[in-house]
């Protein structure tokens, strides 16, 4: 869809557990780094897009960057489901002529500041639609992302026979890739399947090593026209497809009332658009970055995206198939399990590096790269080539 758009620059802060500075400073550092990577300056920027959950308003970032005017700005909702959606909105703005250079950013002190796994009980009573939804779950003790995902994971296991070991293989692959990525929190710290099986329960059937880490940091992505990107120093990562999706009877993490719970139909909505826009299919993809806040949803994504049939992801990922050298290496930066939890934005940066040929875990070939955003919520994804 976004005719002739590309990612021209990526930038990030270090990934840590305590950044020691404000989220606004993190955002500005990442945006500045991304512009430098693109060979652009703040004077070139006329659009900013971020997550609804981000604590830094576009105008605050614009002030810090010294931007005099913004022509396009916006926020995309639903937690980590926004990540690729920000790029999609930026690309549509550029394609429509609403802006020339749009920077997407996400900055968070998720470990040292507000931790998403810590329940704010008052959220079960606020008079918004999300507050009303929380009111059905929080009082019963279903109050964390891990527990919300565990409910779907259990049903998936029941229907298809998947096991904790199957989930563990995703963690093992992520930590293997993180081990050779100096930016990753878990650099040089791989785990074995046995260590996964020995890790403590958080919310059964999720163990500690099924849950992504909590991180401080920021990532920014520069989107511009393909024509302009071709004149810039980096090889453009062409946005071959960009899509958002919400499914039937959609909730935020608790879509428990639809007929089928052992899937992620919102990702199916995204997948159908991606393949149609790009004129590609799953077999064409060289490597993919699949959102991994919790391991079971990587299996469900493989199925919704069409890499394998429903219920067959456990076979698809067996025998190291999703590790380097396998048939579809996943999350070569180490994912959010291994590199950092920057709400999926660090995964987009890795997809760009794979297109450029600069990943520390480069997958050979020149085929397209798929990257997805947060799952269990209204979501989004990109195909870059």
């Amino acid at each position, binding site marked *: 869809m976004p005719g002739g758009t590309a990612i021209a620059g990526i930038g990030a802060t270090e990934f840590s557990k305590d950044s020691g500075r404000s989220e606004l400073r993190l955002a500005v550092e990442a945006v500045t780094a991304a512009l430098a990577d693109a060979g652009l300056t703040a004077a070139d920027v006329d659009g900013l897009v971020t997550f609804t959950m981000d604590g830094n308003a576009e105008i605050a970032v614009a002030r810090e960057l010294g931007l005099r005017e913004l022509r396009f700005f916006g926020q995309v909702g639903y937690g980590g489901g926004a990540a690729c959606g920000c790029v999609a909105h930026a690309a549509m703005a550029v394609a429509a002529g609403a802006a020339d250079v749009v920077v997407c950013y996400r900055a968070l002190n998720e470990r040292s500041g507000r931790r998403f796994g810590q329940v704010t009980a008052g959220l079960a009573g*606020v008079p918004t639609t999300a507050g*009303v939804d929380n009111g059905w779950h929080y009082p019963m003790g279903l109050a964390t992302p891990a527990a919300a995902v565990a*409910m779907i994971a259990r049903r998936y296991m029941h229907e298809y026979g998947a096991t904790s070991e199957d989930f563990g293989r995703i963690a093992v692959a992520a930590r293997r890739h993180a081990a050779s990525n100096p930016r990753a929190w878990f650099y040089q710290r791989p785990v074995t399947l046995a260590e996964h099986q020995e890790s403590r329960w958080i*919310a059964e059937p999720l163990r500690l090593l099924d849950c992504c880490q909590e991180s401080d940091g920021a990532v920014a992505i520069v989107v511009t026209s393909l024509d302009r990107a071709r004149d810039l120093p980096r090889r453009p990562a062409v946005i071959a497809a960009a899509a958002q999706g919400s499914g039937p009877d959609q909730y935020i993490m608790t879509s428990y009332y639809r007929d089928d719970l052992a899937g992620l139909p919102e990702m199916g909505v995204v997948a159908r658009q991606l393949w149609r826009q790009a004129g590609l299919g799953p077999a064409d993809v060289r490597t993919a970055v699949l959102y991994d806040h919790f391991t079971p949803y990587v299996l469900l994504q493989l199925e919704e995206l069409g890499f394998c049939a429903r219920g067959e992801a456990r076979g698809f990922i067996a025998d190291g198939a999703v590790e380097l050298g396998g048939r579809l290496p996943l999350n070569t930066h180490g994912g959010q399990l291994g590199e950092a939890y920057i709400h999926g934005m660090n995964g987009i940066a890795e997809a760009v590096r794979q297109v450029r040929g600069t990943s520390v875990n480069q997958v050979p070939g020149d085929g397209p790269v798929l990257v997805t955003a947060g799952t269990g919520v209204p979501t989004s994804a990109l195909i870059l080539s």
Partner: protein
Amino acid sequence: MAVVPGMSELTAPFWEAARAGRLVVQECQSCRQSWHPPLPRCPHCHAAGLGWRPVSGEGTVYTYTVVRHPTHHAFADEVPYVVALVALAEGPRLVTALLGVAPDEVRVGQPVRAVFRDVAAGVALPYFEPDAGRAAAQRGSLGGLWPAR
């Protein structure tokens, strides 16, 4: 202190019934479909004329999680506890917590029935506990299907 649900025009009838020990779900007065959680209009025929229908309180465990890691002081003394999605006999599903069952003994498909517990002044929540009678009946009917050896 317990986490209590916010009350709104949409949700108050459910919680008022719970306080009286009754489980109710919303029902469309036009097409007679019922569902949960409540909505301002019927999701099937979009009618605005909705009522509330009492349900039996019988259901089965559709899925569940055993929460081991507490993240709120209200639940810190409760871990491990079992959160379940119960499919009511009448169809709609409900997020609840299970009482009277060891975490390792919970199963998908297990018969359960509603019980109410006061958690704060004027607030009762619907929990579920194993339904021994229906479980025995289930075992009996399955037993009849097994070939003699």
